[in-house]
């Protein structure tokens, strides 16, 4: 199977969908002539031309809203946000319009739009550019949110998102863009709402999404090597819809749970997952659920400190040992 990067996997998904469906349009700042601020859309203008791959001004509320409007008439826009942090200037469009129109029209209208871009800290760019809004957005019924952690999932989830008839927000990660992995050339999708057990184990379940999965896999290796602990890592992949059964099955197997995510702790994705586990598998638990999130503060600029603020393998190992104690 070809080994390609997370970035190339996203690009492959968009290219295949542009080929498959004429209604698919890519839009965003610098996506066309500049080939993308992070080169995710590199070469697509050349291949598909300016009708399908469109540069926008720095007007997120305007062009995201425009994309939502176009989707109401059946266009399938795939909108790039240079950073999900910039979605905040388009919040009304993203939440109030895309999220509510189907409901308020009694099901008459739907918004098959994809909004994608990186949503991560860890790149030394300070508080305004380091937001991770998956929990905020997933808290709105009407919206779907996915967070791929690997190249395989990036391609499969992106394709599923583009074919989906609801608004799907894809949160990528600039730190993962260069990660490589096996990705089939052929058409496949990763359905929204299906978690993936990225590592099997028997003593502890770690539930994570996005780059926290990669961090957790590193921590699992250390726990195995240095502490003889067998860790299962469940990658949610999709935040809403959420694959409750895969999480619960793992809990029934290991009876101990650590939740890891790069969000700030207050009402993170882990809050929902912890509620799920205690409500549907309370008797399975041999210890309280613990979590590792980002230290609760706006993102610090200083890189050395930001690496401490985010979950890292050392913090995950330390917290895992508490759950196992």
């Amino acid at each position, binding site marked *: 199977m070809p080994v390609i990067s997370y970035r190339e996997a996203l690009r492959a998904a968009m290219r295949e969908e542009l080929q498959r469906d004429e209604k698919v349009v890519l839009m965003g700042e610098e996506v066309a002539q500049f080939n993308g601020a992070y080169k995710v859309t590199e070469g697509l203008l050349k291949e598909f031309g300016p009708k399908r791959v469109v540069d926008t001004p*720095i007007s997120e509320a305007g062009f995201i809203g425009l994309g939502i409007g176009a989707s109401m008439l059946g266009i399938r826009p795939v909108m790039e946000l240079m950073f999900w942090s910039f979605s905040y200037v388009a919040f009304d469009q993203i939440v109030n319009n895309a999220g509510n129109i189907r409901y308020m029209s009694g099901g008459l209208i739907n918004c098959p739009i994809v909004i994608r871009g990186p949503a991560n800290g860890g790149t030394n760019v300070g*508080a305004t550019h380091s937001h991770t809004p998956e929990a905020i957005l997933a808290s709105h019924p009407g919206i779907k949110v996915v967070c791929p952690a690997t190249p395989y999932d990036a391609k499969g989830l992106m394709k599923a998102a583009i074919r989906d008839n609801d608004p799907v927000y894809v949160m990528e990660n600039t730190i993962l863009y260069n990660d490589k992995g096996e990705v089939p050339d052929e058409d496949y999708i990763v359905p929204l709402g299906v978690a993936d057990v990225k590592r099997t184990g028997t003593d502890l379940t770690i539930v994570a999404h996005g780059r926290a999965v990669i961090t957790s896999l590193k921590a699992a290796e250390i726990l195995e090597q240095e502490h003889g602990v067998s860790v299962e890592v469940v990658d949610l992949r999709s935040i809403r819809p959420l694959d409750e059964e895969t999480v619960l099955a793992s809990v029934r197997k290991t009876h101990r749970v650590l939740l890891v995510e790069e969000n700030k*702790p207050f009402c993170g994705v882990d809050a929902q997952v912890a509620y799920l586990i205690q409500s549907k598998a309370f008797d399975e638990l041999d210890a309280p659920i613990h979590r590792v999130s980002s*230290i609760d503060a706006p993102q*610090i600029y200083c890189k050395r*400190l930001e690496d401490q603020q985010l979950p890292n393998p050392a913090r995950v190992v330390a917290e895992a040992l508490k759950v196992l104690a």
Partner: protein
Amino acid sequence: MAKPAVLTHPESLKRPAGPSEYAKHPVNAALSKKEKVALYTKMARIRHFEQRCIRVYQQGKIGGFLHLYVGQEAVAAGTISLLGKHDHLITGYRDHGHALMVGMGMNECMAELTGKVTGCSQGKGGSMHYFAPDKNYWGGHGIVGGQAPLGTGLAYAVKYMGLKGSCLAYMGDGAVNQGAVHEAYNLAALWDLPVIFVVENNGYSMGTSQERSTAHPGCLAKRAEGYGMDWDVINGHDVYEVRAKTSEALKRAHEESRPTVLEIFTYRYYGHSMADPDKTYRDKEEIKEYREQKDPVFLFEKELLAEKVLTPEQVQAINEAAMAEADEAAAFADASPDPTVADITKHIYWEEDNRGPQTTSRGTIIFE
């Protein structure tokens, strides 16, 4: 794409750069020799500070984004040199020039870039988020256009307090397409606020030329007309012209409490940020032409040499001193410590940092 019928450029930009036509404007004529030398010195300091930043970045000591102001110095220098006690300013992420102009030190600025606790924001803000409220400098803002309403609000506060002052709100040519900017324009005009929107038009927003980003029949400043605001266009390579025309906007703010949009034509020599390879969207020739023929620091130097305000020896001494100062700032940043993990959760809430009998709220506010 619709092309503008006529570009409204400042008259002086249509001719090859020569001696400034604005040298005799009252605000410039009023400058003493010493003040002129000080202005030149500040421009040279901005230039050398940023060129030193490039090296620190290349050494891997600055990460993230670093947006350089090199080429645009006359904009910050000209406008800020006019400001008085009740005049405030706020800008975007290309904020180092403004910082040095208001009197922030190279040390605190450099240490911020390397994330040290001795930085102006204690290593918490970085390059895009410098602040010095004691110098009426309200940042340093990373979200394009987000500062425009804030600047309007600063002007509102100045007026509310009955002070004769203003706020200069700077933004780029790409920022004018943010909704927040238009909402700010409307509020400023509707409520007669003493704000001056300074559009630093360097021709590009990242890799997008201004023509590709903006529908504009003429120039960006002209959008002011839609809101009944005054506007002007300025040659940003000539610090005297910047001062002359900005002084009129300031007068309007101070005396009539009316807003203005100033579009200042300028140019950045380096990529959008250090991360931009700057290879695809503009000609090397174009950069060369600006550097060689319109360099604002060099043009002012020529001006002052011709006026006999400066001698070549003084020019050399000023530049050497600025370079030495930048070297010292780099050494200072190197020698400074990082913030600590405990520092991460400081400065989030005023109340948490000022717990005492006067604080009233209860409950958990920082979560584990």
